[in-house]
């Protein structure tokens, strides 16, 4: 059903990773991505793989959920693989017609593929274990210091969470308008691409009008409930670091140090 849609494919269960502070998860994801680009030998990748496996295990999210997300980058993965395989200069291993596969090429291609898979899996662990709401909260808190340089952090977070709240409502409305237009003979399916795009106009115009009307109503409702920006607001669910969050930070720090030590300096 349209109304049950959740953005960012959150997987509902109870695990240590789910209970972590969203800020920890955001920071960890960024660190993990950085670590993937820092390491460039086998030991480093084994480390990264172990770390990922541990987190996935702790998160209790079935591995098939992760693999499902891989499908979307299969094409990208193949291109990266082929280009690296054939276009890296070095010691020739196999030579077919004008194409040459080099030892360096194989190494490069495998690393690239592993890097991409880890990257996507690493970030999907975050979106699978954190609700969009927690994510916006975490981002607001993390980017808080940017307020000094006049970045409207609270406003951006508020906009994101309102957008999330209205996605299902607007989807439902699109559905309704579509049916109403179809009942009056509109055709959304046949014709070539240009015709199809043109047929969306009678759908988008009413949708935009209604979205603006809703925005106006919502702004009034927010003002009448004393909303006046981020200034002296308090939080119903404030983010406070627990013991497990500090432990997680420690673990991530150790992982980073190990990555740099084994994945970069040695060998």
């Amino acid at each position, binding site marked *: 059903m349209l109304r049950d849609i959740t953005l960012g494919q959150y997987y509902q269960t109870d695990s240590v990773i789910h209970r972590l502070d969203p800020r920890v998860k955001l920071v960890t994801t960024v660190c993990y991505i950085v670590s993937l680009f820092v390491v460039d030998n086998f030991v480093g990748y084994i480390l990264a793989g172990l770390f990922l496996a541990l987190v996935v295990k702790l998160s209790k999210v079935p591995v098939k959920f992760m693999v499902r997300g891989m499908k979307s980058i299969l094409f990208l993965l193949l291109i990266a693989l082929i280009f690296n395989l054939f276009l890296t200069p070095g010691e020739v291993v196999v030579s077919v017609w004008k194409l040459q596969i080099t030892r360096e090429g194989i190494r490069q291609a495998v690393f690239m593929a592993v890097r991409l898979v880890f990257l996507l899996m690493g970030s999907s662990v975050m979106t699978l274990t954190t609700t969009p709401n927690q994510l916006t909260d975490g981002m607001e808190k993390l980017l808080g210091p940017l307020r000094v340089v006049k970045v409207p952090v609270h406003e951006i977070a508020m906009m994101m969470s309102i957008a999330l709240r209205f996605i299902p409502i607007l989807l439902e409305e699109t559905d309704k308008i579509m049916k109403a237009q179809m009942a009056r003979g509109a055709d959304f399916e046949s014709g070539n691409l240009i015709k199809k795009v043109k047929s969306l106009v009678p759908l988008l115009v009413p949708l935009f009008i209604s979205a603006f009307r809703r925005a106006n109503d919502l702004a009034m409702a927010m003002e009448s409930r004393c909303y006046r920006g981020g200034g002296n607001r308090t939080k*119903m669910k404030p983010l406070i670091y627990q013991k497990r969050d500090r432990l997680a930070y420690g673990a991530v720090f150790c992982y980073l140090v190990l990555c740099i030590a084994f994945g970069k300096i040695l060998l």
Partner: protein
Amino acid sequence: MGIVETKNLVFEYIRRDEEGNVEGITRAVDDVNLSVGQGDFIAILGHNGSGKSTLAKHINAIHYPTEGTVWVDGKDTCEDANLWDIRQEAGMVFQNPDNQIIGQVVEEDVGFGPENLGVPTQEIWQRVEESLKAVGMYEFRKYSPNKLSGGQKQRVSIAGVIAMHPKCIVLDEPTAMLDPNGRREVIRAVRALNDVEEITIILITHYMEEIIYANKVFVMDKGKIAMEGSPKEIFSQVEKLKSLRLDVPQVTLLAHELRESGLAIPAGILTCEELVASLSAIRRRRGWG
């Protein structure tokens, strides 16, 4: 002085053409004097475009008077310093349940008002619990608002207002988009708030059935107050209500017709029970019972 007072309140909408020249002026509220006491249940009636919603928005300082003054709990709504106090003391519930829920979870939405007021976290939780219990929505606190019915969403909106501890709640056609069941739920919740918590209620509606619980009814027409009095007094003037393009509940209409045709039935019958009682009284008097 009452909780809400207006004196010679006038509000004009200025219509402009594309260049910004004044095309015309519509007087939406015209010389309204209103006085609402603490703990009252007031109903404001009127057909579409009678100015009742515009009047309501003055009480929450969303509109400012063109002429005249509005006081909420003795504070003038025109003064900027009073703005947030007034919005906290006079909460507002709007017509469309979808367009006034901000949170993605019921409890977060109810907490939105107190968060804005800077209430400490501990107390927010306490207020959310109390308000959700007051409207009977506590067991839905973890739900997404998208999964609730219209009547439930409106009750959540009401809880969101109560959590700000207002003295008065203005409900601007809260039931207009609901089915009969949802309407009943909402009106029951509103009456309970008035009875138990003694919060002043200003209910704006065009459903006649909803005003029979009010202490006092104002009927608006063309921006002016056309009638005022208790529900009984209002409903005893069936002809006048019809001339203001308002429908009367069926029972009241039937009683009115019977009275017109010569039966000794008192004016302003509001419920079925009353009509049955007065009809059987007539039967007894005539010796048929």
